[in-house]
């Protein structure tokens, strides 16, 4: 399915968001690197897909009712074999049922473990006055507590992408502070520009979170992604 078809279908079903698998697919079509995730609707499917991807894998619950997956046991990381994958699947279902009874569980997303990198967040929200706005920041406490983020109004120019990355206080971290692996800043700029272009083409999208993105010396990958759609009139 193309981006537009995926978005159209979700909207025609009256949904206000894309699940992780759909979000990543749509973003990959837009040229943004994400980990590849597939939907497994059963324990057996999860094992089968994990085998195809290669261990270790990650399982995350796919449910229209669950917003903060990891808070209620909806995410299992570093599953090394089939047995662990099977157990994780059962754990996730049990945990969601216990913590959020009645939540509709469509299955889990299965994906490979991404190599850890510098955690970055990129997102989009809509300002009541100025329309779509992109955000950039470092992940973890830098964004949670220090709110060390930069914003630009869509559409972004190259200069905007360049300056917003350099504007955050944590920028030295991206340059490879104290021998850490530096981040691919050019690729981050490119990701911001592609997201800006993508957002411009899709009025029906209300908010986007790419959180976290792992940035490496060469390239990056969005490990989690969420696309929220505008409510439909009527």
């Amino acid at each position, binding site marked *: 399915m193309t981006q537009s078809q995926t978005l159209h279908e979700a909207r025609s079903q009256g949904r206000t968001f894309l699940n992780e698998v759909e979000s990543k697919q749509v973003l990959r079509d837009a040229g943004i690197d994400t980990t590849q995730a597939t939907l497994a609707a059963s324990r057996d499917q999860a094992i089968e897909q994990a085998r195809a991807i290669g261990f270790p894998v990650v399982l995350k619950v796919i449910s229209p009712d669950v*917003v903060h997956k990891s808070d209620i046991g909806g995410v299992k990381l570093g599953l090394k074999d089939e047995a662990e994958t099977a157990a994780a699947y059962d754990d996730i279902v049990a945990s969601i049922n216990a913590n959020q009874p009645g939540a509709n569980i469509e299955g889990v997303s299965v994906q490979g473990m991404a190599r850890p990198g510098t955690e970055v*967040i990129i*997102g*989009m*929200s*809509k*300002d*009541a*006055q*100025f*329309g779509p*706005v992109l*955000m950039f*920041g470092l992940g973890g406490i830098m*964004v949670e507590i220090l*709110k060390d*983020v*930069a*914003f*630009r*109004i869509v559409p972004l120019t190259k*200069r*905007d992408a360049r300056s917003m990355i350099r504007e955050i206080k944590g920028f030295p971290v991206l340059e490879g502070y104290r021998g850490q692996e530096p981040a691919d800043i050019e690729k981050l700029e490119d990701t911001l520009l592609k997201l800006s272009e993508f957002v411009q083409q899709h009025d029906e999208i209300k*908010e*986007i*979170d790419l*959180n976290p993105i792992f940035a490496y010396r060469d390239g990056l990958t969005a490990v989690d992604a*969420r696309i*929220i759609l505008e409510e439909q009139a009527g």
Partner: protein
Amino acid sequence: MGIDVAKFDRLFNPKTAAVIGDKQALGYSWLNSMSTFKGPVYSVQIDEREIPNIEAMGYQNFKSILDVPDDIDFVIVSVPRKFAPMVLQQCIEKGVGGATFFTSGFAETAEEEGIALQNQMQEMAREAGFMLVGPNCMGLFIPGRGVRFTPQQYAGEAGPVGFIGQSGTQSMYFSLLGGAHGVKVSKLVSLGNAIVLDVPDYLEYLGQDPETKMIGMYVEGVKDGRRFFDVLKDVCKRKPVVIWKGGQTSDGARAVSSHTASLATEYTVWESLVRQCGALPVHSLEELVDVLKGLLYIAPSTGERMGIMALTGGQAVAAVDAFAKQDFTIGPLSDSSYEELSQFFSVIGASYRNPLDISSNLPDQTVLVRILDILERDPTVDAITTELTTSLLDRRESMGEGYVSGLIDILANHRERTKKPYFCTVCPVDQEVAAIDMRDRLLARGIPSFPTFHRSANAYRKLVTYNKFLSGE
């Protein structure tokens, strides 16, 4: 992008004017304000008790704008709100260039009648393509044409600063404070409820107005955010825009589901937009005037290496702290500068390391000329600033008449010759009146000054930021 420049030109360069509904209760403030207008001003008033007073002031009065035997470019309306639509209708019929409605009691009251009247006027003006400023506004201040909205404002001498204000008070205070600091206005508009012409319209106009070299704004919020963004981005490429946003607190709790949306508060996004466009955000009336003053009187530059001259060691330290806080460099001078300075600079109780503490060199003013020349030639110095605290200079003056005016002559001569940005800090300490006098004497010679190092450093930083933006950095 969308405005009819010819219509704006007529309204903002009026040759004829009329005041509708001025009265004793207002102290005939509108007619008094317009006494400086360069052209005929007619009065329109139907109240028989007011007419003799108005005529005694020398104004010809008519019962209706339609009776005025002249084409009218600019009308000020100050009638009770229930008559406002009728007056607007007559202005449209007469074909006047535009009108500012001081009349209030519209949507800002949030009551039914006010909203209905406002909607009615909006529809009438839009349909006729009429230039309606306001309502509920102070309107225009165009000193070059003698258009004022309070008799406290200056007239005759225009400046190059355009201003757009979403508050009548802040617009008035800007004109008064700016006037005292040599930041004079080309065209100013206090826009009130902005039911026809809004912030982006005025910005687009001032952006292309050849008499306006820079723009100041006081904004609380804009209705057409996208157009504002597009116009601001375009204007900033040609001239600096300095924006003070009122109402910077958060817009409270909103239902958001993404991380990004929870962080994108109203003010954060606003400030990002302002910077993205290349405009300069400020946070008070004083800062607004400071930054415009810097842009107006300091040579354009992207240079960040400061040469600092202070009257004492203690002030040298304070100056360095303030400029360093704004990310300027106060580094060593070139070897040749040191060599030259060492030949004549009295180091007892002073220092010729940058910052230069010139205390013991003050008695001989020719030494000050040499120091300024050395800083001017030094390739490691991009910009020069001098501290002049009146409490200290007073002591010099008491030793010999004319010390201070001699010093000002030296600085003014330097200002005329220098290619580098040059400005002063005049700290009042206990002598605020004397400091204002010093500020005015410097300004008369084209030298801008600020009352604290922090304000000096901030004004120059904003100038550098804008020039870096222009240079594509």
